């Protein structure tokens, strides 16, 4: 894909940095963020076309060879080596989504019917809004009117899925599902748009954007988690950006996750695989934390054991729950969230969870079942 100097530079790096190298994705993501910010700054301060601003940003990065050399010299060794022998996959995924449920807690059965609001903003037509409260509908209207032409094709409000137990404790219809359509080029910019989209979170605690089933134009899933002040996205990228990266097979994903869970003493509840088109695979894993003992260390061990797998997947999200089904720790490509009762101060993130006072306050807001675990 040749979308400009930044895309060309990153495409060159993708060719040169081994796909299996640990930290590859993070490195490339950070470079993209850096380049886009530098190009924005250059374009804003000097009369420059976007292309010229991107060229300047790329020049300042230095030659791709310098980046690759620096990365190769300092990257750690791989945590996981893919098997040389191809794994025979029994039951290859034919649909867009397959859920493998290893076990299930009894309390997960009660899901309330979802009141929904459906919005469409693909074309400039009047968007029907229904469901929710009057305030929600008015707010949604203002947000959509302010966004202008977008590639949102559907927004649905309702109760969160059963898996999102932490959010289910909040009264009212707090669940917002966003479906995005894209030609691939505008998606990243759309996700970076900022205030208009994030404004939807005024009356939400979470949203999930899902890939339209069968659509080859978007890969992966997009999710947000917020604590009310900080909102972080589960990243997604347009199709074709990492065509050279081969996805592991579903069987390999399941095996690596199973081993990592066993070694870290977590109970594996489910591995959800999402076929994101063009051979790309994303995975969402749910685990149960049965014991508080060495939790942070075991969490880190699980992350290290799955790092190699994560780098090869289009997206890899892990959710750790306690024995009551309350969320303990959530980790996606672009976000982390920790239950303050379990991990606070949090050694893995900055922000409010590093303050003991804030930890105490946040812990009081968490479900009581976690306290008894």
């Amino acid at each position: 894909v040749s979308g400009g100097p930044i895309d060309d530079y990153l495409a060159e790096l993708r060719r040169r940095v081994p796909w299996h190298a640990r930290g590859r994705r993070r490195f490339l993501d950070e470079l993209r963020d850096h380049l886009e910010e530098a190009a924005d700054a250059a374009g804003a301060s000097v009369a420059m076309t976007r292309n010229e601003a991107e060229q300047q940003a790329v020049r300042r990065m230095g030659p791709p060879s310098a980046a690759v050399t620096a990365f190769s010299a300092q990257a750690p060794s791989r945590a996981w080596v893919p098997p040389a022998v191809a794994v025979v996959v029994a039951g290859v995924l034919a649909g867009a989504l397959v859920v493998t449920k290893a076990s299930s807690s009894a309390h997960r059965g009660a899901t309330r019917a979802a009141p929904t609001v459906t919005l469409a903003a693909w074309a400039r037509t009047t968007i029907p809004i229904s469901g929710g409260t009057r305030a929600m509908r008015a707010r949604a209207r203002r947000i959509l009117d302010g966004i202008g032409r977008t590639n949102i094709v559907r927004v649905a409000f309702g109760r969160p899925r059963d898996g999102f137990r932490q959010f289910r404790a909040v009264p009212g219809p707090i669940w917002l599902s966003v479906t995005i359509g894209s030609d691939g080029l505008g998606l990243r910019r759309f996700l970076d748009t900022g205030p208009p989209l994030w404004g939807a979170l005024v009356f939400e605690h979470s949203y999930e954007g899902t890939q339209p089933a069968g659509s080859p134009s978007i890969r992966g899933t997009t999710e947000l988690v917020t604590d009310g002040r900080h909102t972080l996205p589960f990243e997604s990228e347009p199709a074709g950006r990492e065509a050279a990266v081969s996805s592991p097979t579903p069987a390999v994903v399941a095996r690596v996750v199973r081993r990592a869970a066993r070694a870290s003493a977590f109970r594996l509840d489910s591995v959800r695989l999402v076929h994101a088109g063009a051979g790309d695979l994303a995975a969402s894993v749910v685990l149960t934390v049965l014991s508080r003992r060495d939790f942070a260390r075991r969490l880190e061990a699980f992350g290290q054991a799955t790092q190699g797998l994560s780098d090869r997947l289009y997206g890899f999200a892990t959710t750790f729950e306690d024995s009551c089904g309350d969320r303990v720790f959530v980790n996606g490509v672009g976000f982390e969230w920790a239950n303050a009762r379990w991990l606070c101060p949090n050694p893995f993130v900055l922000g409010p969870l590093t303050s003991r006072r804030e930890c105490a306050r946040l812990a009081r807001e968490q479900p009581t079942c976690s306290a008894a675990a």
Partner: protein
Amino acid sequence: MVLSGSMRSESLKGHLDMLLLATLRTAPAHGYLVVQRLAEVSGGELALPEATIYPALHRLERAGFLRSSRELHRGRPRRTYALTPAGESALAGKREEWERFARTVARTLEASG
């Protein structure tokens, strides 16, 4: 930050860790901001291909001298780095080492006329 007539990147490599830790000592920052701060405080004298700071930041994080998180910066998600207590200690050690080295070189040059 690649500037003509500035310090060559080879000269900086050995001191990159110290420079990054010192830059982050003032406040947490994401990579682009780190580069901006380095450029500002050095008056543009530090020449380094900007892409090369990220592997260094990652390595310092693995060593426990930095920690990082994804945070929103002007509406965009950015990985932000901050100095840890171990990083503070490491910086103090490197600073002491650098000052001793600089004093030694200065004395040697003065003695040679």
